[in-house]
């Protein structure tokens, strides 16, 4: 299974979408993707680094502290990351960054190892804070950004300059036709796939110039597609006022908007 085929499978956990995907890979190993309410909490694979090692490396949390937190989490059943934040070893923002990076790298390691089966194991939620979980659209976009050598959080920050936290949307790479960032505002998997196809088709048909845009408005709201270099952005606003704000924001920011772009590697 490729990355998108695997995500299409992960996008359909039985309601309420809380549990774990047990993922079997061709190399005989197993991995896991934990989900709560349809959002990705954490993923792991034998071949990927441990989250605790990553936190130790990134933020200098001592090995002894980590071991002690792991022990108390085993007893209490609390999530490891949330406990580290609670006891002040790292901030919530640092945890979110480390979790996301670890999750995406684990998923990429799973795909690289050759995913051939995903089994759903429902369970009670472990109480991941919503801000430390990410949507499937964010997860797949972050995985693609990592493959392209880009920093997923930087891509999302640039996208949110346009979205203002109130509109769902995404950033696409026009050449590879892949998503590079998805909005913090929930964007479902099916929506993401259909919007991606539509935005790229419109962008090509309208022949948008770099820093050009096309915006639509109607009684229910509207959308805007912009282009900057090899990047294509799409945002959707529900309601006329939200659409007006979105269009003003994008048209004002676009002339000076910056966002990292994938660099083509020489063949």
């Amino acid at each position, binding site marked *: 299974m490729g990355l998108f085929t695997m995500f299409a499978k992960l996008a359909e956990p039985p309601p309420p979408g809380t549990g774990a995907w047990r993922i079997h890979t061709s190399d005989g190993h197993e991995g896991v993707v934990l989900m709560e309410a349809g959002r990705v909490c954490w993923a792991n694979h034998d071949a990927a680094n441990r989250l605790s090692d990553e936190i130790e490396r990134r933020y200098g949390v001592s090995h002894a502290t980590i071991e002690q937190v792991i022990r108390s989490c085993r007893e209490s059943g609390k999530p490891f990351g949330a406990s580290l934040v609670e006891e002040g070893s790292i901030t919530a923002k640092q945890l979110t960054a480390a979790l996301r990076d670890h999750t995406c790298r684990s998923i990429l390691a799973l795909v690289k190892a050759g995913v051939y089966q995903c089994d759903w194991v429902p369970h009670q939620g472990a109480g991941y804070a919503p801000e430390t979980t990410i949507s499937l659209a964010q997860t797949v976009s972050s995985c693609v950004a990592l493959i392209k050598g880009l920093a997923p959080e930087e891509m999302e920050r640039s996208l949110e300059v346009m979205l203002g936290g109130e509109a769902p949307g995404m950033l696409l790479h026009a050449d590879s036709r892949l998503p590079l960032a998805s909005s913090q505002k929930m964007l479902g998997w099916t*929506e993401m796939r*259909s*919007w991606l196809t*539509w935005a790229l*088709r*419109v962008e*090509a*048909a*309208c*022949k*948008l*110039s770099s*820093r*050009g*845009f*096309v*915006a*639509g*408005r*109607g*009684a*229910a*709201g*509207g*959308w805007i597609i912009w282009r900057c270099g090899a990047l294509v952005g*799409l945002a*959707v*606003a*529900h309601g006329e006022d939200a659409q007006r704000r979105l269009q003003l924001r994008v*048209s004002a920011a676009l002339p000076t908007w910056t966002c990292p772009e994938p660099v083509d590697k020489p063949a």
Partner: protein
Amino acid sequence: MTATQDLDSLCRATPSCAGIALLTGEPLALVAQGGAPTAAGWASWAEAVEAAVALRHEPPIACSEAMLRSSQALVLLESRPEGVVVVVMSLGKATAGLALAQARVAAGKAASSLPAAAASGGAP
């Protein structure tokens, strides 16, 4: 006067207007035009038809108006029950806001030709 002659006159009478076209039918097809779409980076009106078709095909939210902006031009695509009016404005002198207002007025006037154009299938 034919719809095309009407659109030529309307285009000339609208400041900064580079071209106006009427598209009707299913699939959408060009039925009348005045001026040219080259300011929008389109080699012919066929490219305006392609853009209109793409915009109307399963958008996230259905919109009656689409506005395309580049540094050189502003294009208004207005959907009506009988078809689509496309107005291409050159942004040489006009500001985008003024050009959009003028494009909307021109689109409103051009739309009056739509029912006849749709009924005749664009024949002069």
